[in-house]
């Protein structure tokens, strides 16, 4: 178990593969994070955001061009991967095709000249945990995707490392298996209590697995927080839109006399929201963010917020129905009751609670009136 500390870590490529010029030569910039011992940290973001690069720097497969990476206080920036006491699960599994499952799992221990009895014991233990004992004699090519995934996990388990690194380990599995393995990895983490970094582009995976989540974009950390806080208190429009499915709706709003207004919607703000907008110099316009699950169908003209538009798409999902409503220029998604009695083309009136909206600066996209300083979340706050 270990505390991993990344201090001003950066990765700069001379020329970024697949990118023109030096436009985005910084793959990762100014990355700061201190994990708790045994914490499950998820790095999430769209592709090319630098999450995998960050993990590869922790693994030692890439060298950080600036900053420090410390594992239990020791700066490992110049230490070879094999001397970092880490284990990694690759997206492609990266099993050794010419070795049996047993030897795939035993390889690291054999290299360390661990006594044979000990190797056998540890491989069998790991195989038992992952329920792959019956596969030990097989070659990777004779395994299904899910089985290979388990073997890759087992290979990491037998090492009993200080830190687990998992680089999108579930992205090659089908949806059902992914949900299963997600729960299994979480259980495994709880059982072993090893500090784990997990990279994914899937925000559902991030939300369900991570104790803390690092949201990245263009090589920079956007926010580090618990799943709940990311959902409830996103620091900017990017995080707000990235976390949660379906995504948050954004409407460009004009602010006047305590009310936000735009084509097809209006919302009377609470006093604390008004003061947040009042503090801002550019308060005449802002982004109004509202999650689909916070919209509900209404007939009466209640206070608070309401929006109105023509229904363009109806998607019944069983427990709920998703409706897309054209509000001004924007297509707003709403999560509504299962038995929605509207037709495509009908005008739908939706209400929302002003307490559940998010306001963002029109220029910087930062959340307006946010009380907590996002920088404080870099430090571990148990």
């Amino acid at each position, binding site marked *: 178990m270990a505390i991993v500390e990344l201090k001003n870590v950066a990765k700069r490529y001379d020329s970024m593969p697949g990118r023109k010029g030096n436009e985005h030569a910084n793959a990762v910039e100014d990355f700061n994070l201190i994990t708790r011992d045994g914490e499950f940290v998820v790095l999430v973001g769209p592709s090319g955001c630098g999450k995998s690069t960050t993990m590869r720097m922790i693994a030692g497969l890439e060298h950080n061009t600036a900053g420090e990476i410390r594992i239990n206080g020791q700066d490992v920036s110049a230490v070879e*991967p094999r001397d970092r006491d880490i284990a990694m699960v690759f997206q492609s599994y990266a099993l050794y*095709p*010419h070795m049996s499952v047993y030897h795939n799992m035993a390889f690291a221990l054999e290299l360390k000249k661990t006594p044979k009895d000990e190797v056998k014991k540890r491989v069998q233990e790991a195989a038992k945990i992952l329920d792959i004992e019956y596969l030990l004699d097989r070659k990777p090519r004779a395994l299904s995707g899910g089985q290979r995934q388990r073997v890759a996990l087992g290979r990491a388990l037998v090492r009993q490392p200080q830190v687990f690194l998992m680089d999108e380990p579930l992205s090659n599995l089908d949806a059902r298996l992914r949900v299963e393995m997600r729960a299994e990895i979480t259980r495994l983490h709880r059982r072993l209590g090893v500090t784990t970094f997990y990279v994914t582009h899937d925000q559902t995976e991030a939300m369900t697995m991570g104790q803390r989540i690092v949201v990245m974009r263009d090589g920079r950390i956007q926010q580090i927080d618990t799943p709940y806080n990311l959902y409830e208190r996103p620091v900017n429009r990017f995080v707000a839109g990235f976390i949660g499915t379906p995504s948050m709706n954004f409407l460009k709003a004009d602010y006047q006399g305590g009310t936000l207004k735009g084509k097809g919607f209006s919302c009377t703000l609470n006093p604390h929201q008004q003061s947040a907008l009042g503090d801002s110099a550019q308060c005449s316009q802002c982004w109004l963010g509202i999650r689909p699950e916070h919209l509900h169908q209404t007939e009466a003209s209640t206070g608070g917020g309401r929006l109105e538009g023509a229904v363009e798409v109806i998607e019944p999902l069983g427990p709920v129905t998703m409706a897309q409503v054209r509000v001004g220029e924007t297509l707003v998604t709403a999560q509504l009751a299962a038995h929605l009695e509207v037709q495509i083309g009908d005008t739908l009136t939706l209400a929302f609670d002003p307490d559940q909206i998010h306001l963002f600066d029109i220029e910087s996209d930062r959340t307006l009136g946010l009380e907590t300083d996002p920088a404080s979340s870099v430090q571990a706050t148990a």
Partner: protein
Amino acid sequence: MTASTVDQTPGRKSGFGGTLLTLLAWVIGITMFFPILWVVLTALKTEQTAFSMTPTFIFSPTLESFKSALAQGSGYWHYALNSVITALGSTLVGLALAIPAAYAMAFYPSKRTDFTLVWMVSTKFIPAVGVLIPVFLVYRSLGLLDTRLGLTMLFTSMNLPIMVWMVYSYFRDIPVDIVEAASIDGASTAQTMFRVILPLALPGLASTGLLALILAWNESFWSLTMTDYHAATLAVYTASFKSGEGLFWARLSAASVMTIAPIVVLGWFAQRQMVRGLTFGAVK
């Protein structure tokens, strides 16, 4: 499958065009194989039949020419031994040099890797005769003329660019994740190479080795110019039947057959081994 669906198979031409293509393939195949067939047939003839102006396909075969080509004075076994030593030696040394070179280029590429590869292969564009004089002078000064070591060195450098290129392409087929997984598992570069990469690339290394062996075995330019007797290979032996007392077609053919036979047999046996793929199932 019905005839009509066969006709629609992509890439398969039907009707007149198809027949023409088949015919063309046969003509090319026979044209390429004919010289070999003719050499074998000639080797089984008497000198008189072999020399006759009207080609004969039906004759009573004799092993006389083989007997005289193998006779004590011909030195077949001496030449054959030289061929084995130089071909095998240059193949082994070539692999020993090509593997680490290709490994570095495939798994730790730099900005100049592509250039280096193209440059290496471009050295093959130079005709051998173009460097004959300097090589000859250097070899004379170093006392390497007509030595097995000298010839082995020449064969090695002659085949090295192709060997590096081939091994490189086999290594490139191995996902880099596997190398990274090994390094995280605690393997040193040497351990990764010997315990992970080489077993995976074995079929590729075998075909590279076989090709190098064939090229070295069949090489005649350097063998004829840089050796006299001590290091002379079967190429020199075959050529020696075309001299002095005149042309002896049947004996020359028998010598040719015995020169190419070992390598043809080897290629035949190694064929299946060469096309086996191991990397399937490695990733995804």
